[in-house]
Structures are given as structure tokens and as C-alpha cells.
């Protein structure tokens, strides 16, 4: 308690030098929370969007299906049992039939994935209800980026060519019924959605599906002939990308923290050199050398407390503002990233993130303060009083 009181007295007494160090450290403190909060917010948003648009509460895959191997698509389909159809009708499962195809927008050839989706499904946020069941025309819905890359607009016709179950090529023109906006690249890029029954008929795979997406109300259980993949598995790639971005960001945070810590270290070295008489006086007044080391260590470490207070003073309003308005990510609209990026990311500042950051800042500042302060324990008090140590 005495050390803390003395430390703050000395720190505040040092004036501008203290506040410059505190400012630098507070930048590091705020930046670490800001960056990690942004990544965590992005992660949450990406996971939420991916679950809402693509993975639901998990998926049942045909055993032959491997989303990383397009050659498996041809054989990855099976009829849905009565039990499954009942769940589909209850909107607890959304069947998806997948096939490779070639689209010919404006005469260009373009590889696409055809996805048959039940227009009445309520499991995913896909606007499948925009797929008219039948009026003599086949309809498709596509994402904004797909529309941009294929130069398509709602109402345009698109020629599709595919091979059916028997390997026979077939072709058909579909009309773009809707262009939807989705932040999940895997749902948008190169994907063409048509009504499930249409695709089943086109592929001669009546009542078949490649995978079944489970909704929130699906009573989880095993389905014969289908392999369940939970969201931990389905979102693993996303988590890996987010983690790698976190590591990249931590290099920058580390550098900033190191610069701030070097400033504190430098101040401590200088302080111990310049305040030798004071150190000698402390010892003459009856403090042990360990207590004096403690005072100087706490004094250096107390920079972190002031930095946290200062950082909170400008960081909290800034974070609240960002939390309210989000951080615009308009440049990412073309899906340059492989992960879902919304137009605005809303940072997420967890208590754990804040506590860990506070701990890192306090511990590192205390360590760099202790290192030069150790020298005091080797000082002869008589030399310190004369201020003649080098």
C-alpha cells in the first residue's frame, strides 16, 4: 500500500514524462482491445451469417459427399425417407440437391454449382420463396456477387447445361427471379439456386438430396444413411481463417506494446540513475533495499494502471460508438475475403478480452519496470547517497 502510494506520488510528480509513457501504453491497450474486439465481432457475425444462410444447426451429408471434392457431387445423392420428408414438411429440415453445371451468361461459359432448394423451406435465410413453383418457366435466384460476375439482372435469362444421373447432357434456360444480398461467399459465388423439384426432375433424381440442413427446431438424432456434421466441423475453416487473422494482428499489437514498454524501461533506467540520492535517502530512512526495489517496480508498473484509466477515458466512448454504428467494411463488398464480411462489423468486447488485456498490460509493464529496478539491490547506500554510481 505504501509502495503504491509512493509510486503514484512519484509518477504524478514526474509530470510530462509520465504522461507520454502512459499515453503510448494506453494506445497499445486500446488497440489490443479494439483489434481483438473487431476480430471477435467479425467472427461472431461470420458464424451467425454462415449458420443462418448455409449450415443451419448442422447438416446431414450423403456419405459420399465431400464439399472439398467436386468430383464427389456426382455420386452424392440419395432418396429421402418418409421420416425425413415429414421433417421437411415440418420445416425442420431443408434438403439441398447439388450438381455441377455450366452457365452461359451473355454467351460466356461459366462453371457453376446448381443447388436445388425447397421454395417453402424455413431453415435457411435464402429467399427460396422467390422461386415460383411453375408457370411454364424455370426460375433461379442468385447472389449479388454471382450476378455481378455473370453480368445478370433480375428478369434476365440464363442458359444452363448439366449432366443428369445417367451422364446425359441437357440444357435449359432459366429466368433470374431474384438477386439476393448475402454476406456468405460460399452461398453466393458461383451458386445458382433453383427449386428442388425442378432440379430433381432435371437430374432425374426424384425425391433425392445431397444434404439436409437442420433447423433450430429439428430434434437432433441420427438419420439412417446420412452423416451428421455439426457446426464445429462446418465452421472450422472459418475459425481457422479468423484465427490466422488474429495472429497477424497480434504482431502489430505486440510491436506497439513493445514500443510502449521500451519507453517505460528507458524511463526506469534513467529514473534509477537520476534518483540515486533519493534511493539512498529511502534506505537511510529505514526502507530495506527490497522495499526500494518494490517502490520503483510498482512505480513503473503503475504506468499501466494510469494507461488503463486513460485508455478507458477515450476508449470506452470510442468502443461504444463503434458498437452502435459498426465499422464500415464497404471495400469488402466484392468478397475479396474468403469469409463472410458484412457491410459493417460490430466489434464484440468480451469481459474475458478486457481482463486478459488488462493483465497483459499490467504484467508486462511491471516486468520491464522490475528489470532495471533490480540494480538497486546491488547499490551501496553510501554511494547512492552521493549519487556517484555509474
Amino acid at each position, binding site marked *: 500500500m*505504501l509502495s503504491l502510494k509512493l509510486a503514484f*506520488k*512519484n509518477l*504524478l*510528480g*514526474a509530470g510530462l514524462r509520465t504522461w507520454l509513457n502512459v499515453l503510448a501504453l494506453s494506445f497499445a491497450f486500446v488497440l489490443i482491445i479494439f483489434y481483438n474486439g473487431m476480430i471477435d465481432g467479425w467472427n461472431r457475425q461470420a458464424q451467425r451469417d454462415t449458420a443462418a444462410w448455409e449450415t443451419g444447426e448442422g447438416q446431414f451429408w450423403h456419405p459420399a459427399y465431400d464439399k472439398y471434392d467436386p468430383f464427389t457431387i456426382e455420386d452424392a445423392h440419395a432418396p429421402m425417407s418418409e421420416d425425413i420428408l415429414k421433417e421437411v414438411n415440418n420445416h425442420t429440415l431443408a434438403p439441398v440437391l447439388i450438381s455441377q453445371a455450366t452457365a452461359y451468361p451473355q454467351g460466356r461459359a461459366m462453371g457453376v454449382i446448381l443447388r436445388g432448394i425447397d421454395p417453402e423451406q424455413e431453415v435457411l435465410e435464402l429467399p427460396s420463396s422467390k422461386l415460383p413453383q411453375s408457370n411454364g418457366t424455370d426460375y433461379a435466384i442468385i447472389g449479388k456477387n454471382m450476378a455481378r460476375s455473370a453480368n445478370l439482372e433480375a428478369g434476365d435469362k440464363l442458359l444452363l447445361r448439366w449432366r443428369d444421373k445417367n451422364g446425359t447432357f441437357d440444357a435449359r434456360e432459366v429466368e433470374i427471379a431474384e438477386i439476393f444480398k448475402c454476406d456468405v461467399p460460399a452461398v453466393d459465388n458461383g451458386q445458382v439456386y433453383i427449386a428442388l423439384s425442378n432440379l430433381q426432375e432435371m437430374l432425374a433424381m426424384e425425391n433425392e438430396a445431397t444434404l439436409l440442413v437442420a433447423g433450430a427446431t429439428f430434434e437432433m438424432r441420427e438419420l439412417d444413411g446420412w452423416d451428421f456434421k455439426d457446426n464445429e466441423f462446418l465452421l472450422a475453416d472459418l475459425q481457422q481463417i479468423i484465427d490466422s487473422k488474429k495472429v497477424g494482428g497480434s504482431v502489430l499489437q505486440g510491436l506497439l506494446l513493445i514500443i510502449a514498454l521500451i519507453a517505460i524501461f528507458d524511463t526506469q533506467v534513467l529514473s534509477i540513475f537520476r534518483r540515486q*540520492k*533519493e534511493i*539512498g*535517502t529511502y*534506505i*537511510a*530512512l*529505514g*526502507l*530495506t*533495499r*527490497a*522495499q526500494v526495489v518494490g517502490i520503483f517496480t510498482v512505480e513503473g508498473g503503475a504506468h499501466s494502471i494510469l494507461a488503463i484509466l486513460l485508455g478507458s477515458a477515450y476508449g470506452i466512448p470510442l468502443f461504444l460508438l463503434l458498437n452502435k454504428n459498426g465499422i464500415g467494411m464497404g471495400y469488402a463488398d466484392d468478397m475479396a475475403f474468403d469469409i463472410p464480411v458484412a457491410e459493417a462489423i460490430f466489434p464484440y468486447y468480451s469481459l474475458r478480452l478486457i481482463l486478459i488485456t488488462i493483465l497483459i498490460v499490467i504484467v508486462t509493464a511491471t516486468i520491464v519496470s522490475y528489470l532495471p529496478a533490480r540494480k538497486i539491490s546491488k547499490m*551501496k*547506500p*553510501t554511494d547512492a*547517497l552521493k549519487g556517484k554510481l555509474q
Partner: protein
Amino acid sequence: MKNGTIISIDKLIKQFPVGKSHFTALNGLSLNIERGEFMGLVGPSGSGKTTLLNIIGSLDTPSQGTVAVLDQSISSLSHKQSSKLRNRHIGFIFQTYNLLPVYTVYENVEFALLLQKLSASVRKKAVMDALEWVGLTDKIKSKPAMLSGGECQRVAIARSMVKRPDIVLADEPTANLDSKNSHHILQTMKKLNKELNTTFIFATHDEKVMQYLNRKVSLEDGQIVKDEIIENSKN
């Protein structure tokens, strides 16, 4: 009210390494100091005054011989024990005052008591008493930078006396003061010596200080060359 030996020095030798050789600062010095003395170690620079003062104050240790302060052998004290001895029983007054610059007058004086874990009210009374002795009760909120040299040294005296030590060690306390301030602080110390029976030991070659001493021990080349009692010193 003099009552017994408070410091006992026997065949004290203190050597400092100088390159591969060593320099002998104190050379077989023996001396007894009684409680309540107002005495000075006098002599030219390099005669060993400050070294002796540092050893008595347990800031340094003898190379050979024994020094006992309040029946505690300085050589055998641990860091913790010597810190406790300084904190409870010894006050220091330095030539350059050595006040802590970021603290107020009050806090500088209070500092020595903080280690003794006294209650705030006891500390406050002791600090105000000490500041009253030196006539600085109107400056309690001032920082050292706002005080004159004489005032700084009076704060240093208050700081050394606030814990009512048995011994006060003053190393050239008047060296940075003008004549008027020197006499003022010496009179203050003499008064405290009489009222509280505190033993004052000066290291000095200032004639003004010598006028107040009851005992003058002259050192030369680390040895006592003269030890005289002065009956009619200034008060």
C-alpha cells in the same frame, strides 16, 4: 541526563578497494559516545568523518573491529535489521537536505513514520510536533522546491526528529547554508538535544557548528588525533 554509552567503537578499520590495492579510510579507531551528547567529528576532507558516520548509521560496515550502536553490532546486522535500526533509532541530516521532491513538507516528515505502521492520528500529531520544533507549521503544504535552503534543512531536521530517535547523524548540515540559517538550525538542534536527550553527532569542518559542540573529536588520516570536551559551548 546523560545515561550510558550509546555507541561503542573498538579498533575500527575501514578500507575501500582502489584498483588492485585499497585505501584505508579509518585506521584502528576506538571511541565511546554517551547518550545525549552533542558532539562533532571534525577534520579535513578525507579524514574519515563521513565514513565513520555511515558506519554508525549502519549504511556501511566495518572492515575490521567492532561498532556497537544501542548494543547492536553493526557487522552482524542483516539488511532488514539494519533498516529497522535506522528506521526506529537513527535520524539522518544531509548536507544537501535529501528531501523527496514530489512530497510536501508534511509528507516528507511523515515518511519515516509510515514504515512504523502508526495510526494516522498518531502520525499527524508527531509530524505537527516536529514541524513546530523547527517552526515550519505554516509550510506543511509546500513542496521542497518552494522552500529556501534553511527551510529545507529545517524540514530535514523535523524528518530526522519526528520518530524521536536515539541518535541523529548530521553530515555537514550547514555547508549549504548562510550564517544566519546555520545558527538557526544549530540552535534548533541544540534545543532538541536538551529537551529530548537525543544524541547528535556531526561530521563537519564548519567553525559555526563547532561553537555549539559539547565534545569535539578531531580526525586525521582515519585516526583520532584529539578528543576534547567543551564546557562552555554556545546554546
